[in-house]
């Protein structure tokens, strides 16, 4: 029976509990509980760190977004893989919120026909840029998410957005990758973590907070009172 006891290169260090000695359910469960507890603590710590380091810039960015929305601007969200699902979340959060103002937002990955047509005929690097070229205009907002900061199609989309005079907002991770070297971004929020999972979790908080502050800046009611359930 294959037990996967031999860690692939580097995996043993990242996930020591994946490769314990003889199969002992209790030991693995104990290790799983410890690991889950650590991850919960890690993301809480990371969010607190962002609350310190990003607060001012988030307030300023939300203010700029509110100005664009008030003037008729629309928001275009984009990303690849898991980040494409975040782009869809951003779009639906603005367009169909649980409370507050409904604002125009579109996720570029939702149109599978256009994404696959451009990828097949031209190349994957141009998908978001071509969509922005066709749909975007001055006063709109480009909201791109990437965990690495290096996605070529996201970088090209921001170049196109900046060319059109859109407000450019990027969420990245680790050290920001190529986006950190791109000097045309209005806002770049980098989650300082090397874990793709923790980066995505923290990015979710960042865009939710941006949404909430944008609503606030537009004079919408603040979030409903929170009651913790057990």
């Amino acid at each position, binding site marked *: *029976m*294959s*037990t*996967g006891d031999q860690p*692939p290169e580097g*995996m043993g260090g*990242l*996930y020591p*509990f*994946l490769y314990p000695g003889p*199969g002992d*359910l*209790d030991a*693995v*469960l104990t290790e*799983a*509980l410890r*690991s*889950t*507890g650590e*991850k*919960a603590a890690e*993301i*809480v710590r990371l*969010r*607190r760190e*962002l*609350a310190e380091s990003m*607060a001012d810039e*988030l*307030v300023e960015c*939300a*203010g700029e977004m509110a100005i664009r929305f008030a003037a008729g601007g629309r928001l275009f969200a984009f990303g690849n*893989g*898991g980040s494409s*699902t*975040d782009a*869809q*979340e951003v779009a*639906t*959060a603005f367009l*169909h919120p649980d409370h507050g103002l409904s604002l125009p937002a579109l996720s570029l990955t939702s149109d599978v026909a256009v994404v696959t047509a451009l990828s097949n005929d031209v190349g994957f690097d141009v998908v978001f840029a071509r969509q922005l070229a066709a749909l975007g205009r001055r006063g709109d907002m480009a909201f791109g998410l990437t*965990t690495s900061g290096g996605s070529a199609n996201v970088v090209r989309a921001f170049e196109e957005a900046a060319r059109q005079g859109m407000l450019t907002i990027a969420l990245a991770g680790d050290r920001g990758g190529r986006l950190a070297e791109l000097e045309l971004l209005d806002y770049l929020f980098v989650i300082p973590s090397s874990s*793709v*999972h923790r980066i*995505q*979790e923290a990015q*979710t*908080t960042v865009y*939710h*907070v941006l*949404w*909430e*502050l944008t609503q*606030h800046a537009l004079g919408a009611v603040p979030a409903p009172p*929170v*009651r*913790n*359930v*057990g």
Partner: protein
Amino acid sequence: MPVTSTMQLAVSEAFARRDSAGHALAEDSLRIARACREMADRFHRGGKLIVFGSGGGGTDAAHIAVEFMHPVIMGKKALPALALSNDAATVSGVSAREGPAESFAHQLRRWADPADMALGISRDGDCPGVLRGLQEAGALGLFTLALVGGDGGAVVRERAAEHILIAASDDPAVVKEIHVTVYHVLWELVHVFHDRPGLLGGKETG
């Protein structure tokens, strides 16, 4: 008070609102690990993961499916998963003809095999489509897991799933954030058990 200073208060308050729910997640560790062991067993038997949610929950379903199908961590095996809410034509088609509550249940009837797993996401636990989907999946003999928030809504009241994980917040945005961590942990622990088939099947000794 100028808008900027009320915005400063709002941003601190927004981050602070995340703390307790984030910590509370750790209390679900054992429930999560047990669900993952059962899921790994199902994957070993050839089962696939069928995920569904409405609105923002649909984006979580898509995220979970891609997490399993194309792991971000090099070397981890791809496992079969399908997000029902990605099929906009069928979801809107069933909704228009049979009502929005029937979409996932309909898709499950056509797609589910006995070894499969159903995972429904609803931030307040009251989404009729998720509720019906979980009930249908249970009737078909699938493993059922629900990610909910608030008081768990109808999913909890009607015990619509064998495994129910409740994010400890009433704010749907915070619930989503907790769910993202939960499904990242789910994915990881499924692999922990899947990589060690000797631990699957049978009962825990402890």
